[in-house]
């Protein structure tokens, strides 16, 4: 296991790298490339990733079932040195490493496989759209981030992928960014996810400070002691009794991580962004907002199941949130008229199922449903995209109908996906959903309160069958309600779009057959495959116990779930095909209920009232504060003060400093004024002065004159 010479395992790091390279290529030179080159690079890189993932999976299967782990540390990535933790500094290191075990193996196959099909589909779907290279660049970047997320061997690297997919989600929801609703939806998704991410990050910090490591496991590494993982540390702490089953700190960590999961996986109360995310192009809805990214929360909880298993309160929270989300979203989906909105609420509901499974301790069942859901939900979205494509962009179910034979290559795979999600055997959805419900029921045998979860699950299954068949019947059956100008443009989608539909349809049929052994009372082979990951480190004494029912009870449970699905389908058939006027009558007889569902329980309005508008008020208040206090008192006040001071200074300068100078001048001037008056400018007056002076002089020196005159005599 350590010295695996296998090419695909050794080159595990290539799997995320291929799409990264092409994403970078698109970013820098995509604009210059023709569409065929974009197709070649972007779809080709995902195909390469898929082939490598398949190769790695085959290599993993070749290993000893007990030690199916391959871990590869490429380099030490974050090495901050010892960080403060509870009880002294702890050596902390986050490496850039990849972990391939049964869980991540399932994930990379789903991500690259479904991702590849959706890439191919996008060639056809996006053919007439602008920003072709940008779309594929983002899509490739998403593939990189998602593969990093699922292959990461530690929580910090997982978080990189986690934020990366969030970024790509934002970019792709807002792909038509000139449309206000699209860019708003992108922002909403990003902001709602921030709430969850804050919880997730806190959880990671808690883990780092409690366990001193954020690596998931040390299995598959050369030196398991030096490279301790969370699982091993947790196990050691349990045996040393430094932690106990149900310790509050474990519950805190688990709940914080789950806050992150509710954001990314669109659970109550943070699901509000996903329906709006349908503003993005349909392949994006299929890939990111149905098949892969939104399941990241499920994957993360399954990945850290060792912690969850030791935190029973957190597990119950996960289960209850999941169950409530499932039925809540399913009830909204009953009355929505936008084809993609129905699918979006359906996705939320199915994700709720997965969390229900995780919460009751059936981790493998949750991941199993994740996988089958990826197949049929991707197919549903791609089929819906194909319908929208055929109808020149029409998304309103009320303006569809009668498309069964006009777009046969779309409608038939769509039927398969609908039956799969409704839970009709032997399609994939039946097995995974039945396993979840069966596990929930099995838990209820030991703890009664879990029966409530099972009942909610069963009701949701009925609702699911109803709303999905409603969608199917409204879109493909009955009379055409298509507007006349769209009518003669209807065309079947090109091959690149329909072939992925068919492959996904095949997967939706056979995808659940891993669970076939449950039919004769044996363990599902999928569960067996995941067991090394999902068993955690919990001591045998407190481990979750699933009651083993007799085969008869198992079959009975299956019968109930199939029966309720059949009931849902039958009701939908009654209300939408046999008596098309019936559903509007139903809506009219319970107008209030219908209105509440149609407006999605007014959750958006409530959030607007409680959070969004309050934050807006706050920002207005800050704006006023900024204007009045910062600008008013601060900036303008300083300017005002400067002006007052300078005016005072000017006054001082003018009247005191200059005043003294002027005073001296004025003093001199007033003193010299009489003398000045002598200067008449008229020279005769000067002549008079001269004469007067002469006379004075003569008078003074008169006696000398007398002497002179006398001497002359």
């Amino acid at each position, binding site marked *: 296991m350590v010295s695996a010479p296998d090419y695909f395992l050794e080159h595990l790091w290539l799997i995320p790298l291929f799409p990264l390279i092409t994403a970078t290529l698109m970013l820098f030179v995509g604009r210059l490339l023709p569409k065929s080159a974009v197709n070649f690079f972007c779809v080709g890189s995902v195909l390469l990733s898929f082939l490598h993932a398949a190769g790695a999976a085959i290599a993993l299967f070749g290993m000893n079932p007990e030690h199916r782990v391959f871990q590869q540390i490429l380099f030490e990535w974050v090495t901050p040195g010892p960080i403060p933790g509870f009880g002294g500094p702890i050596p902390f290191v986050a490496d850039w490493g990849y972990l391939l075990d049964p869980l991540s193996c399932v994930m990379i196959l789903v991500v690259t496989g479904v991702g590849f099909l959706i890439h191919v589909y996008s060639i056809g779907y996006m053919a007439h759209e602008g920003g072709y290279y940008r779309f594929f660049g983002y899509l490739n970047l998403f593939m990189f981030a998602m593969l990093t997320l699922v292959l990461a061997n530690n929580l910090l690297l997982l978080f990189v992928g986690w934020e990366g997919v969030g970024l790509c989600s934002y970019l792709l929801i807002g792909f038509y960014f000139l449309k206000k609703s699209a860019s708003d939806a992108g922002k909403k998704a990003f902001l709602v996810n921030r709430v969850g991410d804050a919880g997730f990050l806190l959880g990671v910090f808690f883990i780092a400070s409690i366990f001193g490591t954020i690596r998931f496991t040390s299995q598959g590494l050369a030196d398991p002691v030096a490279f301790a993982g969370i699982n091993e540390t947790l196990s050691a702490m349990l045996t040393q009794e430094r932690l106990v089953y149900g310790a509050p700190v474990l519950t805190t960590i688990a709940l914080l991580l789950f806050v992150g999961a509710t954001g990314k996986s669109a659970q109550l109360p943070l699901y509000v962004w996903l329906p709006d995310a349908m503003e993005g192009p349909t392949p994006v809805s299929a890939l990111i907002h149905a098949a892969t990214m939104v399941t990241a929360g499920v994957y993360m909880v399954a990945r850290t199941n060792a912690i969850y298993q030791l935190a029973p309160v957190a597990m119950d929270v996960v289960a209850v949130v999941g169950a409530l989300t499932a039925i809540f979203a399913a009830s909204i989906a009953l009355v929505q008229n936008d084809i993609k909105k129905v699918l979006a609420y359906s996705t939320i509901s199915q994700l709720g199922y997965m969390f229900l499974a995780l919460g009751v301790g059936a981790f493998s069942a949750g991941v199993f449903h994740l996988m089958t859901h990826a197949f049929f939900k991707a197919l549903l979205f791609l089929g819906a995209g194909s319908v929208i494509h055929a109808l020149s962009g029409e998304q309103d179910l009320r303006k569809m109908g009668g498309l069964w034979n006009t777009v046969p290559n779309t409608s038939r795979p769509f039927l398969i996906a609908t039956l799969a999600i409704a839970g009709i055997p032997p399609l994939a959805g039946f097995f995974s959903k039945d396993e979840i419900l069966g596990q929930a029921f099995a838990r209820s045998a030991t703890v009664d309160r879990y029966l409530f979860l099972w009942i909610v699950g069963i009701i949701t299954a009925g609702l699911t069958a109803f709303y999905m068949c409603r969608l199917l019947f409204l879109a493909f059956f009955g009379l055409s309600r298509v507007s006349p100008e769209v009518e003669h443009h209807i065309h079947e989608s090109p091959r690149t779009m329909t072939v992925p539909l068919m492959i996904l349809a095949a997967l939706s049929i056979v995808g659940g057959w891993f669970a076939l052994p449950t039919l004769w009372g044996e363990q599902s082979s999928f569960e067996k495959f995941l067991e090394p990951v999902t068993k955690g480190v919990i001591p045998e004494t407190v481990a979750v116990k699933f009651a083993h029912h007799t085969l008869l009870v198992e079959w009975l449970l299956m019968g109930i779930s199939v029966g309720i699905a059949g009931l849902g389908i039958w009701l939908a058939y009654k209300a939408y095909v046999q008596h098309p006027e019936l559903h509007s009558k139903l809506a009219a007889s319970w107008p209030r209920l219908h209105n509440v569902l149609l407006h999605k329980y007014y959750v958006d309005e409530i959030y607007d009232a409680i959070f969004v508008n309050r934050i807006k008020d706050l920002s207005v208040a800050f704006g006023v504060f900024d204007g009045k206090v910062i600008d008013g008192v601060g900036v303008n006040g300083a300017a005002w003060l400067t002006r007052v001071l300078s005016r005072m200074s000017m006054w001082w300068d003018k009247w005191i400093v200059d005043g003294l100078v002027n005073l001296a001048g004025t003093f001199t001037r007033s003193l010299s004024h009489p003398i*000045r*008056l002598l*200067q*008449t*400018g*008229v*020279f*005769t007056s000067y*002549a*008079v002065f001269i*004469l007067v002076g002469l006379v004075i002089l003569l008078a003074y020196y008169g006696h000398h004159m007398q002497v002179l*005159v006398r001497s*002359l*005599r």
Partner: protein
Amino acid sequence: MMSPAHYLFLSLALFLIGCVGVVTRRNVIVVLMSIELILNAVNINLVMFSRVFGDVAGQVFALFIIADAAAEAAVGLGIIIAFFRNRETVMTDEMDLLKW
């Protein structure tokens, strides 16, 4: 026989007439002429004392003064004409640009 005092009185009279003319007359040309009178009063004195003391220097001074008076008249008239061109007047009470 004329005594030096006669000359002195004559010269004094001439001087006083000139002085009164300089002070009282408004026409610059008349003022200039009055100055000539003053100068001639001085000349008479100089010549008279030259004779009294038997020293010819006083008469030489008188000659210098006559030359000087001629030059002065020429320059003075030139100034007056230049001034007249500017101000179109030769009246002394209108020549008051040098006042405060």
